[in-house]
């Protein structure tokens, strides 16, 4: 268990700096898009992509272009993001399966095998889940958690809330450290007896809470002594909103709307049929 806790602590530290899945630092030389613009585009992408009717799988697949292009642009490995987006699968696959059973109306046949509407809906649910998770992961992984919290603050979120987002994240490592110390102490005195008796669980959770609260109060006192007054200070040097951010936002909105409302796949298929 202590190994798992060490791994979790390392993972949390990586999230803070945005080091996961990033290729070297080529992205730092390229002009960076304001994170606020990227957050707004991601939200618009999700709304437009998820409004595609569930039986139009082909139309949905074109929307995979957004995470692929964004990954290339921000220097994040798309393979890494795609692999991590698989975590959503167990949750959506189990519910998507019911569409296969309930919607058995045939839609087309491939070489004698009849494909039902339910199958199209099933894959559609899977693609929706994967693409929405990818868009979200890309938003955070490219710049790191701190930068995202600052962007949220500049988007107008109350400072009480953004401070809480940062605090929660930082105190998680504190809690894991206290848990690590409890686990280590238990291992040192248990001499091979592995499992903790169920009747002791309550005491351990209570002890962990009290220890972490005590430690956090000492840290808080130190922060107050150094001038912290309950809010994270705003950035001194902020990246201003530039023309390229406006262009980025407008361009993606246009492209996504065109894909959604002009049905390009149907048009291409009709064109081929005419030829």
């Amino acid at each position, binding site marked *: 268990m202590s190994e798992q806790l060490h791994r979790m602590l390392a993972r949390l530290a990586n*999230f803070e700096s945005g080091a996961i899945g990033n290729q070297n630092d080529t992205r730092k030389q390229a002009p960076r898009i304001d994170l606020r613009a990227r957050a707004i585009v*991601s939200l618009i992408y*999700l*709304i437009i992509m*998820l*409004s595609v009717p*569930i039986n139009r799988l082909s139309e949905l697949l074109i929307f995979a272009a957004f995470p692929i292009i964004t990954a290339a642009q921000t220097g994040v490995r798309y393979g890494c993001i795609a692999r*991590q987006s698989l*975590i*959503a699968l*167990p*949750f*959506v696959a*189990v*519910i*998507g399966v*019911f*569409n296969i*059973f*309930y919607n058995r109306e045939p839609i087309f046949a491939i070489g004698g095998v009849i494909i039902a509407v*339910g199958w199209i*809906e099933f894959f559609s*649910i*899977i693609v*929706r*889940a994967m693409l*929405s*998770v990818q868009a*979200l992961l890309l*938003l*955070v992984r490219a710049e790191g*958690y701190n930068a995202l919290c600052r962007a949220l603050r500049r988007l107008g979120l*109350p400072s*009480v*809330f953004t401070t*809480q*987002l940062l*605090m*929660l994240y*930082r*105190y*998680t490592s*504190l*809690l*894991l450290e206290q848990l690590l110390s409890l686990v280590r102490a238990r291992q040192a005195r248990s001499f091979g007896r592995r499992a903790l008796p169920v009747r002791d669980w*309550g*005491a351990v959770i*209570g002890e*962990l*809470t*009290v220890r*972490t*609260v005590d430690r*956090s109060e000492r*840290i*808080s*006192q130190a922060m*107050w002594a150094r001038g912290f*007054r*309950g809010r994270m200070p705003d950035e001194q040097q902020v990246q201003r909103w530039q023309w390229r951010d406006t262009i980025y936002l407008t361009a993606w909105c246009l492209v996504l709307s065109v894909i959604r409302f002009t049905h390009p796949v149907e048009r291409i298929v009709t064109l081929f049929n005419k030829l």
Partner: protein
Amino acid sequence: MHMSDALISPSVFAATSAIAIALVGIATRQVSRTTRKRSIDTPIEEVREQRIVPLMGVMGALIFAAQMLNFAIPATGSSGHIVGGILLAAILGPWAGFLTLTSVIVVQCLLFADGGLMALGCNVVNMAALSCLVAYPLVFKPLVHHSSSALRWGAASIAASITALTMGALAVTIETEMSGITALPYSRFILFMLPIHLLIGLGEGLATAAVIAALRRYRPDLLHDAEYSEPKRRSFIFAAIIALALIGGTIAGSIASTDPDGLEWSIERTTEGKELAQHQSTMHQGAAETQQTIALLPDYNTTLSGIIGIGATLAVIYSLSLLLRRQ
């Protein structure tokens, strides 16, 4: 209990996001008002409000870590895990607890893609709002006060946690059905969700009771003590009705939907599986139609009806007792 983006329609997203944003706005104002009271010269030990920032961070971290232990509930597209809203509200108060739980949900969404950006509003309403702003003031608070025994604090934690979890699970089924993405019938869906959340609620109640017991013993100052004055008798009964209706309804509904009731079973036995002859007179048909029109739950789903039924029965019994007492 986290819902996924893939199962949400834009209209459900818009409605739940609007509710969530409004609630976060109110909570932020409430918390800011508490934190603004402090003065720089006051020693930190003397002012409880100064502790709220680290306390919100630590309690949020605790719930964040506890929610990492989750599993996929078969056939629902949702995850099963503890929520922790009652514990947060008991320590931080309902609004700060709501804000803390919302921040946990946001961090899970941003860092681990657990529950999507579109589903954020749904998740905040189902988990944070229903537990901190509904189950806590209606069930937990009326059941306990300063001098209550440890057993009573434990019972209140369990009742409130189960109430919060079952209400949240009910909200998940309603939002998913309203989105219309899944083809799973509502009655099956609710049957998958409610009983399992009843059990998770029981587990969460026990964990909440353990933490509160430890805090009452070692750090009683940390509990949101201003809130626990002597509860009114009427709010105590109201809390008991809500908790009993949700718990009893879920259990009764689950049993009822898996097995036919005694009468159905005996008819099945006597007719040996054959349907009863249809002696449908015009009067029969008329009565059936009227029943369908006036019934509150016409296509009745056993679990939901169980909850509403038990709640209504307890409410009627209580009203009758009030009437009789006045006479």
